[in-house]
């Protein structure tokens, strides 16, 4: 049976390796799963105007973001035969090298999990009202532009 419960998406600060490991281990009881796919977004230490990006500070319009995330999740379940999916995004400050986005899809066979994960990441980046402010090594900042 598909799991379509509404889940908490936003996490204050970085997403820890422990949180990701715990999330994987929680699925060991679901014996109908044969494949997981995971996307992890990490803060890249870009160089902007000769200064290094040391962190990104994320903000969002939660009242609008949450229903959009619900719709993306629903669409994904319609499009792919998934057992479950999880989306976590950081808010607040995340340092270079830390994880800010964790998308986790599970299915009986690998193709659905892989394609659904990529579909979710693209839609999250394009449709969810979240903004990243890149904090530079000289304490100045630049609003991030998604590629």
């Amino acid at each position, binding site marked *: 049976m598909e799991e379509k419960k509404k889940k908490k998406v936003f996490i204050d600060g970085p997403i820890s390796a422990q949180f990701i490991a715990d999330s994987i281990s929680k699925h060991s009881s679901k014996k109908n799963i044969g494949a997981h796919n995971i996307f992890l977004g990490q803060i890249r230490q870009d160089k902007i105007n000769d200064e290094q990006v040391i962190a990104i500070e994320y903000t969002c319009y939660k009242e609008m973001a949450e229903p959009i995330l619900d719709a993306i999740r629903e669409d994904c379940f319609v499009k792919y035969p998934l057992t479950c999916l999880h989306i976590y995004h950081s808010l607040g400050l995340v340092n270079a090298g830390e994880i800010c986005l964790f998308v986790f899809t599970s299915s009986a066979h690998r193709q659905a999990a892989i394609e659904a994960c990529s579909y979710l990441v693209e839609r*999250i980046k394009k449709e969810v009202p979240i903004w990243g402010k890149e904090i530079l090594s000289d304490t100045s900042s630049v609003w991030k532009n998604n590629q």
Partner: protein
Amino acid sequence: MNVSNPIQIKLVAFGVLQEIIGAPSIFISCDPNLESCKENLIKQYPALAKQAIQYAINHQLASENIALTNGSEIALLPPFSGG
């Protein structure tokens, strides 16, 4: 002829647009449609004219000049950059 009375709306702004407005939210009066609201805003904050902005009304993206009512929440959204 449009003889509608001005209404009060709540304006919320994010990212670079919040920096231009100087606050996370403000109240403004305008005629009860989105175009009037945009005109008032650009008059008040000319720097907005150079920005890429999407508007949302009561948490829904608005692509046309839809009607506003007293207490509507208009959001000014710069290009999204999550992930």
